[in-house]
């Protein structure tokens, strides 16, 4: 049928759709498990595995020199996590201070986290080493469909002018999906404001470029409403406060929390999360053991309603309690220019002089309004999953099902349930498979976990070698000496 339509078909045993960290990590593991580069292709609209992440971190106020939110052992360029990023940076900077930090974290210092720039540079080196660039094919993937004879067809639109046909198809036994976030999510009242008044300038999402806000504030004193209680809200506050300090600005910040956390909270001494001043504090996106310890094991054991209840207990919006941020906010509260408060916003309207007014109910139920020059929405990145066309198509035509969290249901091997096709298998990792047996899927370490589990399943099917101690040690030596594989 494809041939009849004049679409050329290429054969390749495994195709990974996405080309971000999820795809990169799987190909890294599979190359380490002995799969030749010629047997795999990455189909992506990104030039590098870090392109999307670099963009999102930059706009959300995490420039390359700042530290990210994961621990020293989570390094996407090294599946072993040894030596850790702390050792790497200490060596690079000739700074024993960083080693001291990982030694005494998190008791006497904040958790060590690498700089974003360290991640870019090391992933580049690993991509070179595993011949990533030879496996990368640019284009927009349209759909993945099961083939009658087993395996899958993946339909790609290459960049204009780069191919004689508008579409090309890949016939493969295995497909991996790692398409990241489907899109941006906007708060209802803010989206309404933007559409009603066609104003995309004063109301911004933190994941959109919004440098103009900071530039404006350098030219005259202004007020900013910040909404959200997660890491991005923290970063935006840091930027506003850094600028205030660095350039001697008069910026006022009104910080609206939908739920205002006043202190440690939880079921009892064994399930108590730190919190205060509005925030729920947590070093990483999940409690650390959800990445590979006790909580990971518990999630695996639980099912259905019990699992959902545990998600409710340990999930939710959090931010790390970094000493620097605590200090800045304290200064702001004392100086009466940072005002955190609980508020539900009903609507936002423009004022006659071109500013914004947010109509709210405060925590105690009293109505109020706050006038500002800008509103920065720091509440969300993740849109509804079927907003991604490939995933929507998979749900509609590919046999995939949604789980309780609205994401793709996967098996413990990360095979998407219901999508098997003959002797072929379709796997997924990243945000699309949140809410299953493993909570921390949308993280570096989570992506590596998925990659290792997928590789183990593929080894069982005879596609690659298992990663036992012998192979692990010899491959690590190759990694350490920078030998290409």
């Amino acid at each position, binding site marked *: 049928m494809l041939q009849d339509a004049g679409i050329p078909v290429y054969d390749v045993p495994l195709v990974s759709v996405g080309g971000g960290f999820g795809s990169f990590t799987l190909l890294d593991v599979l190359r380490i498990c002995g799969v030749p580069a010629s047997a795999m292709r990455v189909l992506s609209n990104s030039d590098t595995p870090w392109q999307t992440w670099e963009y999102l971190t930059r706009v959300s106020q995490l420039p390359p020199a700042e530290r990210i939110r994961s621990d020293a052992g989570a390094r996407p360029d090294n599946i*072993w996590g040894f030596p850790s990023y702390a050792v790497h940076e200490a060596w690079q900077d000739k700074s024993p201070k960083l080693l001291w930090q990982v030694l005494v974290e998190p008791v006497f210092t904040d958790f060590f986290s690498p700089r974003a720039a360290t991640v870019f540079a090391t992933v580049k080196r690993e991509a070179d080493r595993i011949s990533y660039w030879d496996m990368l094919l640019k284009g927009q993937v349209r759909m993945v469909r099961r083939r009658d004879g087993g395996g899958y067809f993946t339909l790609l639109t290459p960049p204009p002018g780069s191919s004689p046909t508008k579409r090309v198809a890949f016939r493969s036994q295995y497909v991996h999906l790692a398409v990241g976030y489907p899109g941006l999510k906007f708060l209802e009242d803010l989206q309404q404001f933007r559409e009603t008044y066609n104003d995309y300038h004063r109301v911004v999402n933190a994941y959109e470029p919004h440098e103009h806000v900071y530039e404006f504030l350098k030219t005259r004193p202004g007020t900013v409403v910040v909404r959200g209680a997660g890491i991005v809200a923290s970063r935006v506050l840091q930027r506003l406060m850094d600028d205030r300090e660095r350039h001697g600005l008069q910026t006022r910040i009104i910080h609206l929390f939908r739920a205002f956390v006043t202190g440690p909270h939880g079921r009892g001494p064994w399930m108590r999360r730190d919190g205060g001043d509005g925030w729920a504090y947590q070093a990483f996106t999940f409690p*650390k053991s959800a990445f590979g310890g006790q909580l990971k094991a518990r999630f695996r054991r639980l099912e259905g309603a019990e699992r959902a209840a545990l998600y409710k207990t340990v999930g939710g919006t959090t931010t790390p309690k970094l000493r620097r941020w605590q200090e800045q906010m304290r200064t702001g509260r004392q100086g009466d220019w940072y005002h955190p408060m609980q508020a539900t916003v009903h609507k936002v309207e423009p004022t006659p002089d071109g500013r914004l007014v947010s109509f709210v109910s405060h925590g105690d139920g009293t109505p109020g309004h706050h006038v500002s020059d800008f509103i920065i929405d720091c509440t969300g990145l993740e849109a509804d999953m079927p907003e991604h066309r490939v995933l929507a198509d998979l749900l509609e035509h590919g046999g995939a099902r949604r789980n309780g969290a609205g994401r793709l249901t996967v098996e413990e091997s990360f095979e998407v349930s219901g999508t098997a096709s003959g002797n072929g298998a379709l796997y997924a990792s990243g945000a699309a498979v949140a809410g299953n047996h493993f909570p921390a899927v949308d993280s570096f370490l989570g992506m590596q976990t998925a990659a290792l589990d997928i590789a183990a399943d593929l080894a069982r099917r005879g596609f690659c070698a298992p990663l036992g101690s012998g192979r692990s040690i010899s491959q690590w030596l190759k990694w350490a000496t920078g030998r290409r594989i």
Partner: protein
Amino acid sequence: MIPTLAGRLQTRIFLLATVGVVLTALIVPVLPGTTGSLARTYGTAYLILLAVAVVGLFWELLYHLLMQFRWDKDWPTLFGLVTIVPEGLLMWVLLEQGLIPGVDGPVAFSTFATMFVFVWVGQWLFANGPMRVVSVQWRLRGGRIV
């Protein structure tokens, strides 16, 4: 580290049986304060190592209980190092009281302390790095070996 209880127990035994055994073999010939034959010192040293493993299983239960008070259910690197103090002290007391089966005759404090610190630090370093290479899955499943 983010151990599960099974992971703690397995890791304790695995590390003592591998890194612990090798490091003990290396340190015994140069231990200070020893009397008697080398063979006898080796015998005593390995009995102590065995005792550390057995008593250690009870320590792990206690650590696991304490870890439950931590929201992250993690066991910071530093804890793995400073627990040398209570464990070393208890082991020394047991040794002094003659409560370690098979060890007859006194052991000098310098002998004990040198061996204990050497093996402990060696294992701690191993667990915080090279162990991840020996088993890729080890750190992702709470320290379980199997």
